[in-house]
């Protein structure tokens, strides 16, 4: 992918807000709010289409059911709140009312990851991918920046007809992808070409992976960087190709290592083309209060940690080859 230049720093929720405002021109789209409308990027839609935005209060389980009833009545409901609530508190409702009924309900998982910062562990969703990933019929998207989040919500509304979970964040992160990029749900994007090892990242850690790849290049290691924006259904072809061509895969996500995107990649790699792997993410711990950048550093989810793990694993690959 070309044009790897930071255009600005923007929260992915801004992209969600803009995309929903655009896709909201479809009169079937109905927005459901759970008290934190502006905070999760539902505000532009709510302002533009007040007749199609409904407040349902701090009652997320009900919101998922209401969304299901709307979807069973030819509407396209969009419900978003913090991912700790929209995905975790409501898992049973998502499992039965949404997924078992195969409904086109769009669920936003806002404020994902430790980068929510000072609010602390209660509000830092680090388990949502693992739980959503185990549910049949759902599609999980975790876009890498604000521009891509905008395209993702538009695609989720316009091009899909199944349960959708879109994960995004609150903090400003580099916005570097272009409006007319080739974004297709289910199709991973190669951001940096390389054949020595592969870094598969999701969310804003894609940019961190790109920075890490730059540093690796200075050391003579050509790292491939893949943006796995769709975690389910997973792009097996891109993963198998990376395993075969680069022989080592490192995954990076702002989520628990257990059950997350890296686990999903490992399931493909182990079955189809086993190569050494390593995982960057939360190591089965809760987060804490702090500035986003402090937390990402403390819990090892920055370009520096990706670089370090990549170097360690690259030598592992070389020693394996000597055997």
């Amino acid at each position, binding site marked *: 992918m070309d044009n790897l230049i930071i255009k600005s720093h923007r929260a992915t929720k801004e992209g969600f807000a803009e995309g929903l405002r655009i896709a909201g021109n479809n009169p079937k789209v109905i927005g459901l709010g759970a008290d934190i409308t502006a905070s999760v990027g539902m505000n532009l839609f709510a302002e533009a289409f007040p007749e199609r935005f409904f407040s349902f209060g701090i009652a997320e*389980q009900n919101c998922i059911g209401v969304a299901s009833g709307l979807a069973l009545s030819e509407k396209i409901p969009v419900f978003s709140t913090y991912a700790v609530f929209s995905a975790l508190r409501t898992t049973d409702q998502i499992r039965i*009312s949404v997924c078992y009924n195969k409904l086109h309900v769009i669920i936003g998982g806002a404020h994902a990851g430790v980068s929510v910062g000072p609010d602390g562990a209660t509000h830092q969703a680090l388990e949502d991918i693992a739980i959503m990933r185990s549910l049949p019929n759902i599609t999980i998207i975790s876009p890498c920046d604000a521009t891509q989040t905008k395209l993702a919500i538009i695609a989720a509304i316009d091009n899909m007809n199944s349960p959708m979970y879109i994960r995004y964040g609150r903090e400003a992160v580099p916005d570097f992808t272009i409006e007319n990029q080739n974004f297709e749900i289910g199709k991973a994007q190669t951001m940096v070409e390389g054949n020595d090892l592969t870094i598969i990242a999701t969310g804003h850690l894609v940019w961190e992976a790109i920075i890490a790849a730059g540093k690796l290049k200075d050391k003579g290691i050509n790292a491939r960087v893949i943006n796995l924006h769709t975690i389910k259904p997973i792009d097996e072809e891109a993963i198998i190709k990376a395993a075969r061509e680069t022989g080592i895969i490192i995954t990076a996500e702002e989520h628990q290592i257990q059950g997350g995107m890296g686990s999903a990649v490992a399931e493909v790699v182990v079955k189809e083309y086993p190569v050494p792997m390593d995982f960057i993410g939360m190591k089965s711990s809760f987060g804490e209060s702090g500035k986003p950048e402090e937390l990402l550093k403390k819990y090892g989810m920055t370009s520096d940690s990706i670089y370090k793990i990549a170097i360690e694993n690259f030598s592992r690959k070389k020693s394996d080859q000597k055997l």
Partner: protein
Amino acid sequence: MNIILKTREELVLKSIEIRKDIISAIAEAGSGHTGGSLDLADIFTCLYFHILNHRPEEPNWENRDRMVLSIGHVAPVLYVTLAHAGYFPIEELKTLRKLGSRLQGHPGRDHGLPGLELSAGSLGQGLSVAVGMALANKIDKKDGYVYCILGDGELQEGSVWEAAMSAAHHKFNKLIALVDRNNCQIDGVTSDVMEIEPIIDKWKSFGWNVLSCDGHNHIEIIETFEKVKTTSDRPSVIIAKTIMGKGVRSIEGNYKWHGKAPSKEEALDFIEQIDNNG
């Protein structure tokens, strides 16, 4: 066209047929929820043969009334009633709970049975879905009603009250819930497991129009539904007093029959009792 039964005698006879088929289907399956299915037979007869505006030959007709069964475990009464109403062949009832059947243990739309409005079985979800349907009807200015059948034990689920609060807030007057007040749940009598009284006061305080009726008196059931439809500013709930296992004297009011299936021998006896009670 849907079959409309007008007289008490016709409705009573239909409920007897439905009860007998519920027993046959559950006995054939070897498992299933007998008690609640039997006690809802009169209410389902009234709904599908008198109250609902529906088209069995066109299950997805857009202006239909919607009937959301929140307590998916009483699927047998829904399936038997749908079959009698003409949604699918009565013959198919004997596939209940068997591999490959469209008649799943709890309703699953994915299996293609016509007439199912919702896949449900995890308690506390149906009323929220009904609220969503009522919202869609309101947005589209449709005249259809949304009905939702709840269990009394189900009222112990907190999410029911989230849904109740929201329906009143948005003034969905074309949403009508019905609570199957049989006072039984798996562990025992509802008041022992977890007291839900005062039910009427609870719903009233949540902003609902509340009426009660004898859930086994067809005329009273129909009149109560007609009465709540005159409400213009709030959702309504009917607390229908029922007897678990109604129609089979030997098990009536016995919570142990919540989730138990009769053996084939018992089924013959139960069917005879239903005939004698008619």
